[in-house]
């Protein structure tokens, strides 16, 4: 099981929880599990999200491994200037 933190404005879709637990071992499995348990997140996930795994930010990298003790933070898509 992996603890995933969602950012403030998404917590409305996770019944107000900042952190939720899902059963997953890769980036994509985390997203699939989140959409299954919290359908309210589907819009944002389809628009595209990044994910910080142990401090490093990944953008849509489905097969990146996620360990049970990893710090997993859902984050908006990155843009630059």
């Amino acid at each position, binding site marked *: 099981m992996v603890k995933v933190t969602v*950012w*403030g404005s998404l917590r409305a879709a996770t019944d107000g929880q900042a952190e939720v637990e899902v059963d997953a071992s890769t980036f994509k499995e985390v997203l699939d599990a989140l959409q299954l348990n919290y359908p309210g997140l589907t819009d944002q996930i389809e628009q595209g999200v990044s994910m910080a795994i142990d401090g490093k930010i990944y953008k*849509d990298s489905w097969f990146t491994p996620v360990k049970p003790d990893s710090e997993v933070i859902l*984050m908006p*898509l990155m843009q*630059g*200037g």
Partner: protein
Amino acid sequence: MALDEYQKRDFKIIGTRPQRPDGIDKVTGRAQYGADFYLPGMLTGKLLRSPHAHARIKSIDISAAAALQGVKAVVTGNDFPGGAKGDTLDVQDHCLARNVALYDGHAVAAVAATSAKIAQAALELIKVDYEILPHVTSIEAAMPTGAPLVQEGRRGRKIPEEYSDNCTGMCEFGHGDLDAGFAKADLIIERTFKTSSTHQGYIEPNACLANMGPDGRADMWCCTQGHFQVRNLCAQMMGMDQSALRVTASEIGGGFGGKTTVFIEPVALLLSRKANLPVKMVMSREEVFKASGPTVASLTDVKIGMTKDGVITAADALIRYEGGAWPNMTIFPGAQSAFACYDLSAVRAQGLNFLTNRPLQAAYRAPGAPQSIYAVEAVVDELALELGLDPIDVRLKNAARKGTKSSYGPTYDEIGLIPLLEAAKAHPHYTAPLGPNQGRGLSSGFWFNFGGETCVSLAIDFDGSVTLVEGNPDIGGSRASMSMMAAEELGIPYEKVRTIVADTASLGHNEVTHGSRVTFSVGLATIKAARAAIKEMCRRAAKTWGIDEEAVVWEDGYAKPAGANAGDHEPLSLAQIAAKSSRTGGPIVGHHEVMAEGAGVSFGVHICDIEVDPETGFTKVLRYTVLQDAGKAIHPDYVEGQMQGGAVQGIGWALNEEYIYGEDGRLQNAGFLDYRIPVASDLPKIDTVILEIPNPGHPYGVRGVGETGIVPPLAAISNAMSHAINVRMSELPMSPPRVLKAIKDKG
């Protein structure tokens, strides 16, 4: 993929200052920028732009224009085949309106003719029937319910009732218990800050040359930060396959985020296809100001609580941005970066975006961060002053470090903020004496960095020289950095590697040159491509010597036998292996395609001294020092250049640059005369200090440095101003009329 790419090593080429490969062309005037291309039979394209802040287009009569001698094509927004959807459709509408002209300068029709004069005359023959609509050009006007609506159906999800339908998006980041935090504070300061919309100010106006035939195939040359992005956007708008459109990036005359999208490129393709002739379009400076992509204006509330000894107990920010007539996402990086420099137990940053009748914003160097961090750094400075604490000590006490849970979520790995603050405190500038009417200001700054799609191909040519092919337009000298990294890895001289930026038909997709990502991502792919070539060269050597592949190592440009039973063989140089490559299996090319990950963040600390003339409000920048963490400075000249260039853009933003809209919603200063960017005589030398705290996610430890430099100056100059005239100003730019008024109001 190994999480820790970084291996400590002593470098031979990395860190030196060789001459850039494109230098001769640029100092002799031969370099070809967007407007420097010509083709036989080329037409000139021009755009008709709406003179109104907001107007419905009831009808457009192009008959007279179409019939004018020399006119070969006339198009309007409805000539697009209709393939574009979502954000891309918004961008297409921004390039050429369909039903409503949403801002002063919005393009409503376009003409291609055999000369610029005829095209201009044709524009004057187009008759547009406008129905004027109410407009808004500021956040304050767009925000409340009942405000004039810019576009229907754009209200964001779960937007509080108090806001009008112009509010298209909301976000929130942070953690901890704010109320508990504020309760522990000895002093709480709450302020509101405003910043004006500013423009990237690139000296080269947007320009392109499109050549499309009725068979649906096309070529395009244009100045851009990302020709793959231009191809993909234009292909969707034109309803054509991406592979049917080949885009070649010209040299680019500055971008800073403003050339990460399209403005005239789709229109040039539309005109070229209709005329079945090449069409060249070049924006005038007035068009660049009115209708390209300036950055968002902001209205930000910041509330911070601090104990007597300078510990921040709670921090809260409400960040409101306005970014033009279509939704944009800049509140996300804005809210995420607001408190990113701080180690906080209770923090919240909320963002709200509002539509206005202005051009669709584009990124401008660390988009969203200068505006939000300016507000935070100003309040931190005021707290330190009120509590009688040294501004650097307060920042050191609360600085984010390894293991800090950042305000935007992830826990920081190795970061350089504390070493930077300590270096700033020790710098002679920080303790130099000041005269009357002078003030010193300090600010820290932050920006993310990104990876993204990156493709590189590295060919070992027969004579032992190397052609490195990459797909990211080089704005600040990145071709030199790539040649350096390839040469370092291959063990050959820097001059032996030629780096070129290829067109979209030569490589897989490459993410735009933005997000301070190029030296990191393209560098990473270059090193991996070089290692792939080395692996193949070792294999060729092993087969030549008749030994096992694993028994060959690569050292200082040579394949060498190694290991117990490798036998005694003369090492083979890269050139020797290359010369025989046709006989040992064929040309040797290393390549690497990746979604680069693991970019490291880059912090900065700026110190600046200013002097204010109390009788006129004129501000002179006396001294400026930039300290920034580069992870590893590949080519120190160009790292310094990013720091100096970013700082001066920030100085312009703080003192004189702003978009000025009249009551009629029209832009009043669409030119370099009244949109005042800093000139050479405005500035002192910009001193730079590079720190190198390696980024674990890159083989050489590289962090992107391109954007952080613009973040600190807004607060650094504002804080200096408050000490020079002992009045806290909270609106940018601090132009002389505003400064003189602040001094006189103080009494």
